[in-house]
């Protein structure tokens, strides 16, 4: 067995996986990684199942050291400056930490959360099928709380597999798409228009329960209290002060404020990564369009292994070219540095 010892880590960093849906009727929130695509990309890079447990690292930095053997890890999500023993290393890639070597991560740039996946996963005791940390419910493994300095993550020794990088679709800053409802009828046309036509920013006081939005005040037609009903990831509730809150994976399972709209599943991770203070907009789409985008998103996750590339000699990567040709895609070897397999 090898392990990663955390010598320093910022707040809002915790072990997260695909979460634990299935007990929301008992008030247990599903939790899980806020950016599923980044979680899956990091895991696929080290040969894990896409939604295996990884370290979700908050906006500040971290430093982890391999002990009792080499550990193979991968990073995806919000990019940062990263080095192993002062050697700079790349994001969206796997890498090996030799016994005693440290991985040092700087602040997140252009996002909030990065994912550190560990080959062989993180050893822990699943509760409701998940290692995800939910401190309020006393759930999460190996620690039922956010990670702290000195914590240890047990894992397996590096297999010796070649390091890989992954080519992900470029991140867009297109509007975050929403489906109106379920309580959009609690708002007048002018309030709904203001919601869709305004530039918004995510408040620095946001957390895994909810992201507070900064922008205009959204007024209710009637009372700001409704009888509590169920919530989902991406529910946009508007409390009495008119400041919308987007509910995140550690949300309460029910809430008593009207929900003007819901962030679509395919855009949820991209929304979660918008850095505090950066402007963005919402755009309303139909349920049908949101579901089509979700199908595409699921396809993208399923196809992540086909986006893996060798790290060395990728200027002319014969093996990958061959794979791609077998898959039926025409590849021009001259452009081998930039090609990717079409979806």
């Amino acid at each position, binding site marked *: 067995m090898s392990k990663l010892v955390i010598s320093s880590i910022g707040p809002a960093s915790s072990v997260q996986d695909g979460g634990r*849906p*299935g*007990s*929301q*009727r*008992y*008030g*247990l929130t599903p939790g899980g990684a806020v950016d599923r695509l980044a979680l899956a990309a990091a895991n696929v890079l080290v040969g894990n199942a896409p939604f295996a447990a990884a370290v979700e690292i908050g906006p500040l930095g971290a430093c982890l050291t391999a002990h009792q053997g080499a550990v193979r890890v991968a990073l995806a999500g919000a990019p940062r400056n990263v080095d192993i023993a002062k050697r700079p290393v790349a994001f969206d890639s796997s890498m090996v930490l030799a016994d005693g070597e440290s991985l040092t991560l700087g602040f997140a740039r252009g996002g909030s959360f990065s994912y550190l996946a560990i080959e062989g996963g993180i050893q822990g005791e699943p*509760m409701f099928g998940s290692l995800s940390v939910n401190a*309020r*419910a*006393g*759930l999460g493994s190996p620690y039922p709380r956010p990670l702290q300095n000195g914590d240890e993550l047990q894992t397996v020794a590096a297999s010796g597999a070649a390091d890989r990088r992954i080519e992900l679709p470029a991140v867009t800053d297109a509007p975050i798409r929403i*489906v*109106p*409802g*379920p*309580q959009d009828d609690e708002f007048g046309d002018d309030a709904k228009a203001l919601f869709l036509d305004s530039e918004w920013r995510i408040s620095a006081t946001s957390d895994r329960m909810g992201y507070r939005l900064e922008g205009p005040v959204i007024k209710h037609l009637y009372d700001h209290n*409704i*009888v*509590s*009903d*169920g*919530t*989902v990831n*991406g*529910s946009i509730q508007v409390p009495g002060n008119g400041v919308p809150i987007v509910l995140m994976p550690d949300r*309460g*399972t*029910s809430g008593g404020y009207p*929900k003007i709209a*819901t*962030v*679509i*599943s395919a855009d949820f991770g991209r929304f979660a990564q918008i850095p505090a203070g950066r402007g963005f907009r919402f755009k309303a789409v139909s*349920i*049908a369009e*949101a*579901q089509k*985008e*979700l*199908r595409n998103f*699921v396809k993208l996750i399923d196809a992540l292994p086909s986006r893996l590339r060798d790290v060395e000699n990728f200027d002319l990567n014969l093996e990958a070219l061959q794979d791609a040709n077998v898959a039926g895609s025409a590849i021009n070897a001259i452009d081998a540095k930039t090609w990717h397999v079409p979806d």
Partner: protein
Amino acid sequence: MAASLSPPRLLPSGDSAVTVEFSRNIDDAANQRVLALDQALAREPIDGVTETVPTYRSLLVHYNPLEIGFDALSEQLTALAEQPVPPVANARCWRIPVVYGGEHGIDLEDVAKTLDTTPDDIVARHVAGDYRVAMIGFTPGWSYLSGLEKFLHMPRRQNPRLLTPAGTISVGGVQTGVQCLAGPSGWHLLGRTAVRTYQLHRDPIFLLEPGDRVTFATIDGKTFAEQDRAAESGELIAELIAP
């Protein structure tokens, strides 16, 4: 009977959930229809439905849109919602022991003053109630009970408390509740129970189901302390008195 039920409103909660809304208000008849639809879905599952969350007035149905679309699901849910509501008498009934007042229920005196009666009268009225788990939500095991006597209806506190103890029994608005974990609350604290409605490494982890009936029984502080220790080691403490 079935023909007289008005159809629920089907409200999209994003691309993977639909809110089946029977009423906009806290309404016992609506809650019974919510629980009936929840039970109907458990008996006759719809392919693609992944999870249901009953609340006072609506059932949130999570689904996988790769397996079923919004329109097809809405149609099936509407048909199920027309089925007659089964009688409440068939539900499980739990007796939950509570130590009222003093350090365990710091608002009991104030509630009595506000309602112009004695703490004993508040306790007698609260214990006399026959309640039903209308929903569980907010935090694990937080059970919202319907059936609170009108006399005990009270607005919530102006300033919610940031921390109230695990096992708190309280009243707020037209509801009473069993709070499992320590946490914030704007309700009025009447007492505490040693019963854990949510406890890891116990079978069952969640004690109460939406639709269960609940009655309360008074105990003294010494009994509470004993029960609290027993509950810590996994005993249910709550007593199943029916069916």
